[in-house]
Every structure is written in structure tokens, then in C-alpha cells.
């Protein structure tokens, strides 16, 4: 089995395996609809490539035509052809069913966890020195204001956490504050869930808008205490470049 169809199929399977299984090892998994889009794109690319010249067209399409028409095929070939001819209508029927069947699953949510901050919060740096007194004070404030949701151990498992969807962020997970700059935390703490843009689904977030209760100084010190307590360090400007 050689030829353009075989090569094309290998490429498609490769693209699919890469998107579906390899990529999630490094980053968040792609939604299935996007994977489908990319595979379809790759497929059209292969088709265009395969049908560019008359001879490549014949090489590409000829076997498919011969296969579908069933002329001069061996027993195995005939079986395969029959299988395809039976399977195709079944697939169409199945597709129709899945598209029309009322789903019992609530709408899928694609909440962006770290949307872009408003311009005025980009690049701010913590004006308070990272000295033990400040860190201590930050931790004290954290215990009073943040731990009911984010947990005394910075793990997102505070006593109030179970009632909220999305759950309070787990700061000891390398996917949260370790990915972020201090200025980003300053924005999130000051403006809270209601400060998120639409892709962050602000209407669902229980994160309070702390500017109504805490001074900027307190917020900067809490940020210090938070990183220290969670054993993480902020992402810095240099890494961003």
C-alpha cells in the first residue's frame, strides 16, 4: 500500500494524534471542534496538493473510483467496498441523530481562565520591598480575607470553596499564580470576578472585588504573602520577552 492516498492518510492521523494526545502534554487540551477544524484544514490541503495536476489527480482519485465502482476486485476488496457502502449511510444517520437528539448535558463552557488585563494594570511592579515584615503582614491578611475560599494551605480548599463554580484558584498549582506577573494579581485582587472581561465569565466568579475593602498597600503585601505561602514565584518581565 503506497501512493498519495496512503501518505495523505498518514499525515491526517499524524495531525490528529498530535493535536489530541501530544499537545495536551504541554498545554491545555484543545476542544474537539477545533481539532476537527484543523484536521479538516489539513485534509483540504492534502486534497488540493493531490489534485493539482492531471496525473496527480488520476493517481489520487483513480484508486478511489475503482474501489467504489467495485470492478475487478478480489473477495477482500469486495468486502471492504461493501463495508464502506453500508457504513456511510449509517454514519450519516448517526450524525443526524447526534446533531438532533436533545442533549441532557448543560451548555459547554469555554471560560478563559487568564484573560488579558486592562492596560492600566500591565507592567506595574510591587512597590513594597520583599522583607520578612511585609511578607508576614501579607500572610496575616491572607488568612483573614482569602483563606475561607483559597484555603489556609493556599490550595483552593477553603471551607467556602465547595459552593462555588468555578472553584477558588489553587495557588500551589503551577498553573495559576506561577504563570502570572504580580501586576496581573494586583488587577485580579483589586477588581475581583466582576472585573473580568466577557471571556472570563465574570457573572460566575465568586472572587470578591477587594478594592472596596482593602488598600493598595494591603493588596501588594498580600501578593507577597501569597507567593511565599504557596512556594511559587511570580513570572517576571524578562521571561515575557
Amino acid at each position, binding site marked *: 500500500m503506497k501512493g498519495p492516498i496512503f501518505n495523505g492518510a498518514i499525515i491526517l492521523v499524524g495531525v490528529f494524534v498530535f493535536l489530541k494526545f501530544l499537545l495536551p502534554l504541554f498545554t491545555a487540551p484543545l476542544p474537539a471542534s477545533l481539532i476537527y477544524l484543523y484536521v479538516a484544514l489539513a*485534509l483540504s490541503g492534502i486534497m488540493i496538493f493531490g489534485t493539482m495536476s492531471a496525473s496527480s489527480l488520476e493517481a489520487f482519485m483513480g484508486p478511489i*473510483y475503482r474501489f467504489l465502482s467495485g470492478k475487478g476486485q478480489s473477495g477482500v476488496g469486495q468486502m471492504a467496498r461493501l463495508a464502506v457502502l453500508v457504513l*456511510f*449511510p449509517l454514519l450519516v444517520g448517526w450524525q443526524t441523530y447526534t446533531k*438532533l437528539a436533545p442533549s441532557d448535558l*448543560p451548555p459547554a463552557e469555554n471560560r478563559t481562565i487568564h484573560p488579558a488585563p486592562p492596560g492600566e494594570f500591565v507592567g506595574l511592579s510591587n512597590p513594597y520591598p520583599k522583607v520578612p515584615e511585609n511578607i508576614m503582614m501579607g500572610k496575616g491578611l491572607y488568612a483573614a480575607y482569602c483563606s*475561607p475560599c483559597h484555603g489556609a494551605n493556599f490550595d483552593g480548599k477553603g471551607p467556602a470553596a465547595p459552593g462555588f*463554580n468555578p472553584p477558588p484558584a489553587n495557588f500551589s498549582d503551577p498553573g495559576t499564580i506561577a504563570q502570572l506577573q504580580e501586576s496581573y494579581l494586583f488587577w485580579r485582587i483589586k477588581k475581583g470576578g466582576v472585573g473580568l472581561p466577557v471571556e472570563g465569565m465574570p*457573572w460566575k466568579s465568586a472572587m470578591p472585588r477587594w478594592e472596596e475593602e482593602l488598600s493598595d498597600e494591603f493588596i501588594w503585601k498580600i501578593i507577597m504573602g501569597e507567593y511565599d505561602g504557596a512556594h511559587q514565584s511570580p513570572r517576571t518581565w524578562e521571561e515575557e520577552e
Partner: protein
Amino acid sequence: MLNSLTFLRTVPLLVLLGTVNVALGLANEPPPAEETGSVSLRLYQVEGSVPSDDPNSAVWSSIEGSEFKLAPQVHWPPRIQEVTVKSVKVKGVHNGQELAILVEYNDPTEDPADGAALEFMVGDKQAHFAHGQEMLQVEGGPVNIWFWKKETGNALDMSAKGFKNLKTQEKQNVQAKGVWENGTWKVVFSRSLITEDEQDVQIQPGEWRSVAFAFWDGAIVDGLVKEKGSQKAVSSWWYIRAEPSADNSIYVWVLFGLALAAAFELVIVRKLRKGQSA
């Protein structure tokens, strides 16, 4: 020979695309694990009347319910760090006209200030779960709150858009009935699915809506009511849907799809055979 068959070039593409599409559909992510509680509430469709004034009706034991976790309200002041109601079991039914929702939760004592509330988003705009409070980058919508209190024995139909804007509606469309027994409250809320009031949530069967919960333990501790106002047990938004009536037309469409695909193949194969022998 191939020229006369130009249009056939798209066939293999269609077949391939269809197959890939279905394969991906099957490989889709499973629904989220329910270990942290339910994510949605289903209002089962029933024949006849809904058990609006009977929290102990046999109808309730015939259906599955959902369970939602609750948190002490620590989102805005005045907060509370510890609450009585930690989770709630919820069941729902409708008959195409009326709906009834049963909430069932533990509360060791029966007190006049005990209360329960359901909150819904109203209309097309998203509303923040905390009383439709203002959002900074998104224009939010209002919420509809159904508030039952033991001492009044009935439900208030209320609206809010922001913390200081909670008000009782002019048109009262909600009923409620609560029964306390052996440390458990069972409260049934009922209403018509659709009302004339634009301040109300409209529950169209088959469509998803957002719902949130709140509970107050009105026990007297040290001469004060333990939980009142913003000091309560809460949840954020979860989904609710009234079951749509069974729709058999979908099987007609499936048959139609099957037949269409088969006819399509027939034509293609015949053309190909002719084309190749010509």
C-alpha cells in the same frame, strides 16, 4: 473519461470528512465528574398536576434529584464564616404548564426566621450570581429571586439588579410550602413555566437557564438570629432545564438521512460503473 465525472471528485472527500467528524464526536471529552456535586437540575415532565403543596408527595420519590454544595457567604460584607446548611438536594417536575421544585436540606431546629431562596437569571443578559451585582466590563442583566420564609409561610417573588436593589415585585407569581420534620426542611416552590411578567424568569421546556440557591438558619444564638440578610449559605450559578416533550420527528430525520445517503451512493456507483465501461 474522468471529465464526465468531475462532480464525483467531492464524494470521497465527503465520505472522509463525515467519518473523521463522527470519529472525533465519539472521541469527545466525557461530561465533568460529579464528585463535587451536580452541575444541573432537571425538571422531569409529568402527567397531571404537579405536587405544588405537598413536599411528601409520591411524585418526588419517583424521580432523580441533584445535589448542590453550599458555601458560607464570604463574597461580600457582612460575611459569615460558618453556616448550618452545607448542601441541598433538589428535585423538579413540570407538566408543560406548571413547575414545582423541591429543596431538601438539614437544619436541626425549626425557627420562624428559617428561609430558602432560588435565584434565576432573567432575559438574555448574563447576571452575576450575587444579586446581579454590577460587572465592570460586561453589561449584566437582572435576577429573579423566589424567597420563602417560615414565618410568612409563603414565597415572595422578587427582583434584583445590584446589591441595593432587591425589591418585591408588583406581580406575585410564586407559591411555596415548607414542612419541617426530624431536622429536615422540605420546601416546594411552584409557578407557571411562563408568566406575563418580564421581571420573571421564563422557563421554556428544552432551554437551559441558570439557577443559584441560598438558605438561612434562623435559629436564635445568644439572643440574635444566627443567619440573616447576606449572612447565609449560598451557591453560585448552576444549570436548570425543564425536560422537553419527547420528539419523534428526529427518527424521521434519521431515516431520511439514511435514505438520502444510500440513494446518493447508488447514483455514484452507477455513474462510476457506466463511466468506467464507456
